[in-house]
């Protein structure tokens, strides 16, 4: 697995998880936020302080909600970094 392949696979997975299919096979686009929530979902709360080392400590918040917010914040940070005047 290379970073390029990993990034492509991640985007494809995000695209896949951003859609929902009904029993007839009709697809509905849920949006990016819902896609991120479904991207890496597990409904635990991660309120163990031992996880602080992994930046994965979010007491009272479902993991899927935390994960989506964390990705969006990282995205935001990246955008800010790239938009700084040189």
């Amino acid at each position, binding site marked *: 697995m290379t970073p390029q392949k990993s990034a492509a696979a991640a985007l494809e997975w995000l695209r896949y998880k951003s*859609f*929902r*299919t*009904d*029993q007839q*096979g009709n697809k*509905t686009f849920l949006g990016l936020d819902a896609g991120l929530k*479904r991207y*890496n*979902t*597990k*409904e*635990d709360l991660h309120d163990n302080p031992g996880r602080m080392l*992994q930046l*994965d400590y979010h007491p009272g918040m479902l*993991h899927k909600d935390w994960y989506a917010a964390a990705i969006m914040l990282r995205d935001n940070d990246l955008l800010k970094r790239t938009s700084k005047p040189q």
Partner: protein
Amino acid sequence: MKTGLFLAASIFITCAFNTSPVQAITCDGAKPALSRKQLVATLRRQEFPNIMLDKVSHLELKQLGNIKVSDTSCFSIIIYTAELDRGPGSETHRVARLLVLKNLHYIGMYPIDTLPFEISGNTVNFRGEEKWGNKIVFDKEDPPQRIHLGGEFRELFK
């Protein structure tokens, strides 16, 4: 010599005329009940990927219950959850699967995003709207090969 012949004849008669039906297995909400140790041992002996037992953290195995579809078929439904960590710089991935054992033999798993909350009759129920798929029905001798769950079609695989 005479004893040997007598034993052989007894075995032959027992086998030839034993017409009693196959003993029905006990299968209800509580039995068969497998401990975590028994589950891990069962999965290791069969075709369950060892990597999913050895190369993960926060491994949890919970028996949701059993579903009896006939006198000779009993499905045990197991919730598997774990975390895969591929080292520094990579995001920890959560893995959840619904494992299916038939008469205590591992036969496959479904990928799941959310965990089921109950077994009702022969149905494993999940939260969510019915139109996106919120249940798995076990009504045949084999589990369904394809299910509709959480807005996705998912296959049973090993």
